């Protein structure tokens, strides 16, 4: 029996050799971390990074982590937790909604710029990315940024690579900022409220200095998460309870933040869309989306809508990404203005002149 083996480099030099060779032969590659992100329909041989794995350095006192892209995310999370730290952007695990069984990796998280509910307060994955090593489409080994918090030395290509879904380069090392895990957390739940009411709750809560670190609406209930030092938590909770008393909040210590992070309520096989909008537009959009025949949930204080169901959400909101195809054809990514698309194409040709890296994956 013959088994088709994936290309599975274990070192940066091997990645460079493979890419230089594929560049010369113009052979497309599908770049894979744990295979748990956006549905990957691109042609080509699979280049898996699971063997390019391991932590290079973790310095809790400097709040920095340097690791190779194939390092499993759970491994990183455990290591950080043992030091009382975390990746503050709360990377989601999309296996459930995508029906996959690989292990999410650090590289895949960065390549997708994947961020969970705390994105609202702490910023996205890209905001925590301090530096990268990578191999471009010619097979050149390159670096950008570094391992310090403040760095404006030259162009910030780390930001460009975060969220580029492996279409510009193959990451070989990432440097991320880690932050102290706040020791106490609780949630105010508002059962049975509409999106419009949820938005009013979010706007009130997010205008306070109480550092709300999650604001979501799922299954008809709104949730507000607060985190902090023990001494902060009771105070913040009580202030928010008083401010929002008219909406009858309940204190909940086991709120489903992990499920919200992973959009677990929308597991299945039908089309699933991720829509970014102004929070105040979310309730109206949800009404329109439901009229198309599906269901919605909100995260990021209304700035992120998950829509599961039929129809084309881009008729209502331009910034919609098709995360799970469920039989829908056409581009997964939102369309771009012509001048922006031209810049993006130009960058692709600079990083990957032969067009071998996940070709077409991010087409809008």
């Amino acid at each position, binding site marked *: 029996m013959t088994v088709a083996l994936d290309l599975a480099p274990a070192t940066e030099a091997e990645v460079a050799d493979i890419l230089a060779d594929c560049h010369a032969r113009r052979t497309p590659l599908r770049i894979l971390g744990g295979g748990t992100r956006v549905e990957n329909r691109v042609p080509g041989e699979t280049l898996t990074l699971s063997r390019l794995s391991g932590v290079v350095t973790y310095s809790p006192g400097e709040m920095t982590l340097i690791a190779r892209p194939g390092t499993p995310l759970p491994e990183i999370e455990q290591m950080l937790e043992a030091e009382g730290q975390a990746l503050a952007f709360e990377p989601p695990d999309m296996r459930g909604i995508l029906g996959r069984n690989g292990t999410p990796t650090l590289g895949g998280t960065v390549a997708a710029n994947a961020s969970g509910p705390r994105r609202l307060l702490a910023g996205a994955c890209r*905001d925590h990315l301090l530096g990268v090593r990578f191999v471009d489409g010619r097979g050149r080994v390159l670096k950008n940024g570094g391992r310090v918090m*403040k*760095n404006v*030395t030259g*162009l910030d290509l780390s930001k460009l690579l975060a969220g580029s879904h492996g279409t510009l380069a193959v990451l070989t090392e990432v440097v991320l900022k880690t932050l102290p895990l706040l020791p106490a957390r609780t949630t105010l739940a508002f059962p049975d409220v509409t999106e419009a009411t949820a938005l009013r709750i979010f706007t009130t809560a997010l205008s306070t200095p109480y550092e709300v670190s999650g604001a979501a609406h799922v299954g008809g209930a709104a949730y507000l998460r607060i985190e902090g030092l023990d*001494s902060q938590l009771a*105070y913040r909770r009580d202030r928010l309870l008083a401010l929002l008393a008219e909406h009858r909040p309940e204190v909940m210590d086991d709120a489903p933040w992990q499920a919200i992070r992973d959009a677990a309520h929308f597991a299945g096989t039908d089309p699933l869309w991720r829509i970014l909008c102004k929070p105040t537009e979310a309730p109206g959009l949800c009404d329109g989306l439901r009229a198309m025949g599906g269901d919605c949930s909100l995260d990021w204080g209304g700035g992120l809508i998950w829509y599961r169901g039929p129809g084309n959400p881009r008729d209502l909101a331009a910034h919609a990404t098709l995360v799970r195809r469920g039989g829908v054809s056409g581009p997964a990514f939102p369309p771009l203005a012509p001048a922006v698309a031209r810049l993006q194409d130009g960058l692709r040709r600079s990083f990957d002149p032969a067009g071998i890296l996940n070709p077409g994956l991010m087409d809008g």
Partner: protein
Amino acid sequence: MTIAMPAPDSRVIAQAPRIVAALRAVLPPDAVIDDPQETRAYECDALTAYRCPPMAVVLPRTTAEVAAVMRICADMGVPVVPRGAGTSLAGGALPTADCVILGTMRLREVLEIDTANRYVRVQTGVTNLSVSAELEPHGFFYAPDPSSQLACTIAGNIAMNSGGAHCLKYGVTTNNLLGATVVLTTGEVVDLGGPEMGPAGLDLLGVLCGSEGQLGVVTEAVLRILPRPEGARPVLIGFDSPEVAGECVANIIRSGVLPVAIEYMDEPCLRAVEAFAKAGYPDCPAVLIVEVEGSKAEIDDQIARIRAIADALNPVEFRESRNADEAMAIWKGRKSAFGAMGRLGDYICLDGTVPVGQLPYTLRRIGELSRQHGLEVANVFHAGDGNMHPLILFDANKPGDLARAEAFGADILRLCVEVGGCLTGEHGVGVEKRDLMSEQYAPDDLAIQMQVKDVFDPGWLLNPAKVFPLEASAAHRARAAE
């Protein structure tokens, strides 16, 4: 004068009258300046050792006017140097004799304050401080706070990805910038990002921010705004050695308390501050100012934790502020530090960042280098994120002193890179650190950055002599000129 600039393009200078006439045709009369008496006001920024009057200055008021200027300059092959308030310490806005300075200071409208969606949209000539001032009645603020915030503009902040004292908690400009309206060298106007929390395609905004005016001219920005904290209070901690102060910084960060600022001052700085501002700081080799935010009870709790950490390291003094006056007294010396140093003579202010754990070693090595070069250095900086600001003191009237100070500065920046840090944490590369870029980046690392510039600015007209060593960018500039 050790930093070279490329020879001005004589073909451009020969065409100066035609170029100015073309600019006058698309801008209001007071928006084009070519009188040498007046262009001289633009000959340098805050890096005053380098000066060169530009060919002309334009001061557009709208995005459309900026686009018209860019089209003319692209057509006629004229280099464009964007300029905010001219507060760059790195020579980011230093002109060349063949360039047009494109000043953003008349783009000064606040276009939209949207607290429900937590953003503000401004023209980029507004000053950093005025954005927060506009937001104050709404209970919000804009977080990045460079020390030049009274004068510096949002355009300059975006170009340099500016930081500030409070970025330990709130991040720098790139973490607080949601969108930008950008004029490309073609004169096209594009919107990158927007009020939404993420880009539609590649994160072009992320690469634009901090690109030192080399990729496009940002005329409008969408900025993330935050609710004002209930209160803030600093403490002052004195130590009898820089190493122990450095250890205290690392221990605070590890403890889970995340202060909004941790500032460090060393003995030469403290002496100057004492003489100038009489802040009443303790007489010791190292002082930290740590500021925390929250309600009164939250602040008390965080300060108690910081005190426990500091006490374990036997501080010379731990001074709390019980009221606003005492808080101001603690900040007084730090805020007057640069003014105080200025009275000691001329200085170069460096900006390298090192990993926090390397602070004690780096400070020791800077002391050794100071003795080697025979020039005094004072250190005052953002310790929490390792962003150092060594101030090298010299005498501009003494022949050779500037060159010696620059050589000392270069050695310090090499040291920052050597210990795992970088050349610049918040001031930018400009011309000042341009020729040191190859200390931090290999030729290919610079090449890929210049290839990004090729895409945005194929003619290499935007601020072309900055950031990249001239010999490294020569081929790109030559190809662009064809």
